[in-house]
């Protein structure tokens, strides 16, 4: 088999030599035979003639020899290709429309697939990435020694902390950058090396180790001009001097894209709060070769009682037993959040390609009807139906190939745009590229598209028995062609209906989501993160923080166009979350049971008023709620209803479990959506800014000016107060809300775009079939008009056809949508997946589109001149 293939390939690629040798061999034969004949007394001329004649037609023999060598198909293919090129050049309009339609479908598919490939399919960019597993998150950092000593499934276990930002101060310029506190094994477990210098060494996270840092390649080139003497330089991170020991590999960013600084955690056993209280550590590991994820998971759960017992206080017995606490492959975990969404888009874009193919198939059919004569002539001259069908297929492949190439061009432009536009928290977007896998996919999609587009027409190649068609100018093989074309259009419409209904549901759902009252006023509010170093403010002492924020309030208040200045520890809807276990009066927690908890906020006195949060009972904070005055708290309505339903919470006491002093509740405010518009309001617990040392705060100002215009002045104001504190994430509250719905919004817009494209293609399909029908039935229409039909009757012929096509497509499409609606269950908010409004409006869209598509053909039909048609016969 291999030998044969090699032989064939040799014959193909050394074609000239093959031909030359074959000629030489034949010549030798003829001459040899002629010599023998001469020897027997035949005259030389006669001998040569006879010898040649023995070969029959030399070319025929050669052809057979070629076929024996298995290369005749290549000759025929070349012929087909040449022929296809000629016919397509003769029909440039058809070719162009086909190529564009396919390019649109293939381009959209390639673009979406390149994202899927980068985000879901590619292996993680780490050596043996399939052995990397996510072990646990929201764990105490204090469990690290247990994992180091007792977990046998791994070559190494590493950790990183939640909280992805740090203050970087270098060359007197403060900047907020993405940074992580990680264990010493972080780089070695991932298998990542340093571009310059080194990564962390064992023991660098031990108490008393020298303060070091590794920076990213990007930060190194952006901020330090790719300084070759970077290693050993001092930088300040969160107010602490650290020595840069290395620059990580180019492109490395983990656990999230954009991470630029890594520092070792401090495993100081004295620091009980950080080791056991913070509970913000993520554990991941590299499995030993041959160890399965299931095995590691068993071990993980076997270790659970050990870890629970290691806490300095008694943990709830249920802690860690949740079903979401299990060992998973790292790549699967990273993909989990976007898998469904991308799957939906991929399905939708696949439908777009199907519709595009159906459209091209339709174009083909229509054209085929016009080519009957040519095809019959070819069959009369000895081309088999199979040969003609193959010819059509090759033509279609050429179109699909060109469409695919144009599609790749579309994807090359579209993919970076899509990547830039997708929500920035989409994992692994940096791995998205048009690579070999993507191009392979495109090639496959193109061939399948060509096959699909050619299949129908190939089945409709007229039989040579209809040879009398050669004499007859008006071949009426149009009927079956028309029926197949109609079927294709119905399929197109049905597919378009599915997409339009899907997109409609998402649009309605997004509308519902955006209509949710966030509980705050978003207009004319500009926000910015203020993140002082912990040493400056935040290490337990309230006073420096109070002074800092009071001074900042004065400076910012002096900026023209700013009418109010407030602070909050957490901005609604910006993706942050926090949770404190609390002691609540009237609600004691039995030992061993899970703690009750609330979402803590620290706010300045005027924050509620600025944000439009209403005071429902009691009072808001005032300037008199000071460091020295009695501790007070305000809770949200949801919290009030949860803990004290039907009674007033005013005067009740509440406190975080580790604090000694109780806070007295003085007011209840309206609920605010913190975790997302789709999520239920949380149990909110507010403390006044002067009574809780919250390190970093978000500056919230009322201003008519755009964030971009305000940013410079805000930074200058902060620099006057404190030159080392960075100001970051300047955005309007409107932007915050928009970002919070980025993921449903992008999905909706993409799906709506795909639906619009299929709707357009469907309309073009309907138009094409009607238009062709009018051409086919010119004679009939002419006769009808001659015997008294008026324009309205003629129009009705066309419109009726359109109505039948659209109605059939609608019926199929709506049924399919109704049955398949549950696929969208995870994507809709506030509407049923069988939303009545969507299922009523979508058909109306198609009725309008069907009418529009039939308008021109109907008009053309009325312009048929009966006399011309009848005389033309």
């Amino acid at each position: 088999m291999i030998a044969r293939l090699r032989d064939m390939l040799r014959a193909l690629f050394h074609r000239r030599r093959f031909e030359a040798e074959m000629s030489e061999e034949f010549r030798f034969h003829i001459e040899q035979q002629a010599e023998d004949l001469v020897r027997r007394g035949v005259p030389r001329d006669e001998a040569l003639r006879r010898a040649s004649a023995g070969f029959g037609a030399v070319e025929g023999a050669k052809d057979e020899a070629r076929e024996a060598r298995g290369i005749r198909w290549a000759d025929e293919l070349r012929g087909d290709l040449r022929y296809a090129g000629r016919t397509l050049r003769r029909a440039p309009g058809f070719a162009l429309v086909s190529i564009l339609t396919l390019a649109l479908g293939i381009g959209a598919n390639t673009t979406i697939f390149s994202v899927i490939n980068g985000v879901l399919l590619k292996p993680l960019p780490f050596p043996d990435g399939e052995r990397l597993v996510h072990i646990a998150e929201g764990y105490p950092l204090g469990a690290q020694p247990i994992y180091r000593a007792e977990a046998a499934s791994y070559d190494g276990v590493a950790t990183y902390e939640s909280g992805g930002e740090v203050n970087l101060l270098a060359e007197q310029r403060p900047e907020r950058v993405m940074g992580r506190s990680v264990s010493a094994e972080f780089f070695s477990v991932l298998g990542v090396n340093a571009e310059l210098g080194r990564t962390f060494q064992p023991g660098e996270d031990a108490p008393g180790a020298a303060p070091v840092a590794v920076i990213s390649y990007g930060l190194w080139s952006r901020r330090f001009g790719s300084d070759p003497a970077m290693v050993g330089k001092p930088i300040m991170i969160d107010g602490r001097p650290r020595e840069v020991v290395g620059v990580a590999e180019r492109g490395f960013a983990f656990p999230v894209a954009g991470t630029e600084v890594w520092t070792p955690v401090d495993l100081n056993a004295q620091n009980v709060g950080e080791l056991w209280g913070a509970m913000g550590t993520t554990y991941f590991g590299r499995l030993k070769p041959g160890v399965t994820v299931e095995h590691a998971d068993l071990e993980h759960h076997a270790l659970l009682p050990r870890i629970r017992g290691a806490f300095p206080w008694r943990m709830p017995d249920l802690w860690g037993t949740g079903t979401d606490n299990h060992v998973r492959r790292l790549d699967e975990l990273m993909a989990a959040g976007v898998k469904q969404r991308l799957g939906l888009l991929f399905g939708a874009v696949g439908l777009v390609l199907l519709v595009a193919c159906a459209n091209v198939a339709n174009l083909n059919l229509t054209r085929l009807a016009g080519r009957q004569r040519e095809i019959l002539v070819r069959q009369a001259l000895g081309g088999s139906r199979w040969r003609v069908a193959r010819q059509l297929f090759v033509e279609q492949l050429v179109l699909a190939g060109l469409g695919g190439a144009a599609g790749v061009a579309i994807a090359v432009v579209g993919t970076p745009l899509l990547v830039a536009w997708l929500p920035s928290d989409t994992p692994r977007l940096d791995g998205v590229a048009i690579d070999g896998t993507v191009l392979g996919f495109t090639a496959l999609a193109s061939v399948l598209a060509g096959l699909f587009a050619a299949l129908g027409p190939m089945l409709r190649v007229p039989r040579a028995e209809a040879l009398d068609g050669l004499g007859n100018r008006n071949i009426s093989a149009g009927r079956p062609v028309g029926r197949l074309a109609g079927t294709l259009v119905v399929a197109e419409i049905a597919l378009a209906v599915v997409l339009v209904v899907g997109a409609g549901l998402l649009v309605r759902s997004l509308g519902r989501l955006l209509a949710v009252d966030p509980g705050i006023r978003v207009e004319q509010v500009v926000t910015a993160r203020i993140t002082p170093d912990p040493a400056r403010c935040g290490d337990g002492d309230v006073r420096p923080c109070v002074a800092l924020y009071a001074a900042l309030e004065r400076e910012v208040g002096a900026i023209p166009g700013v009418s109010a200045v407030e602070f909050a520890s957490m901005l609604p809807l910006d993706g942050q979350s926090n949770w404190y276990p609390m002691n609540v009066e009237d609600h004691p927690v039995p030992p061993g049971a899970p703690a009750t908890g609330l979402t803590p906020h620290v706010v300045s006195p005027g924050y509620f008023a600025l944000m439009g949060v209403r005071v429902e009972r009691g009072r808001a904070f005032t300037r008199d709620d000071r460091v020295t005055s009695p501790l007070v708290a305000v809770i949200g309505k949801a919290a009030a209803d949860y803990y004290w339903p039907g009674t007033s919470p005013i005067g009740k006491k509440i406190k975080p479990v580790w604090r000694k002093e109780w806070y007295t509740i003085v007011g209840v405010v309206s609920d605010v959506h913190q975790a997302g518009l789709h999520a239920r309001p949380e149990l909110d617990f507010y403390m006044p800014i002067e009574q809780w040392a919250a390190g970093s705060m978000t500056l919230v100002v009322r201003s008519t000016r755009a964030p971009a215009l305000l940013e410079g002045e805000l930074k200058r104001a902060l620099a006057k107060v404190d030159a080392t504190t960075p100001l970051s994430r300047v955005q309007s509250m409107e932007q915050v809300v928009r970002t919070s719905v980025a993921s449903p919004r992008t999905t909706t817009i993409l799906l709506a775009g795909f639906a619009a494209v299929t709707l357009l293609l469907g309309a073009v399909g309907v138009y094409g079939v009607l238009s062709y029908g009018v051409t086919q039935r010119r004679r009939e229409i002419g006769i009808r008009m001659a015997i008294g039909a008026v324009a309205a009757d003629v129009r009705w012929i066309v419109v009726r056809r359109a109505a039948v096509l659209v109605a059939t497509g609608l019926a199929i499409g709506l049924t399919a949508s109704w049955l398949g609606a549950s696929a969208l269950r995870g994507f809709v908010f506030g509407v049923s997946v069988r939303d009545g409004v969507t299922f009523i409006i979508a058909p109306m869209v198609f009725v309008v589109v069907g009418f529009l598509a039939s308008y021109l053909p109907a008009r053309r039909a009325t312009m048929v001149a009966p006399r011309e048609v009848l005389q033309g016969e």
Partner: protein
Amino acid sequence: MSKAADLLQGTLDMLILKAVSLGTTHGYGLLLRIQQSSGQALEIQQGSLYPALYRLEHQGLIISAWGESDNNRRAKFYQLTPQGKRRLKAEQEEWSRLVSAITAVLTTTPAAVRP
């Protein structure tokens, strides 16, 4: 296609393999060889010979190489491969079985088929 070729449809390959197995030679030589050994009874058309040769070579049953003919002309010589040898043997056996079966049928007397 001539009558001889029709007759030889299935057996041409076998004849060629046999002819090649008698010794390395070129296409014309093979033709002569088959004609002579059949006592001029079988005449093979060049038009069938070469496609068959190319096919057999493509199947890996024979191999070819360029060499010098008796009168010092460049010619393409054919030679049997081990695979070709096996094929020839198999086909010869098959042929013999077929011939003896047919012969047996043709030589049957009426007495032999009476129950």
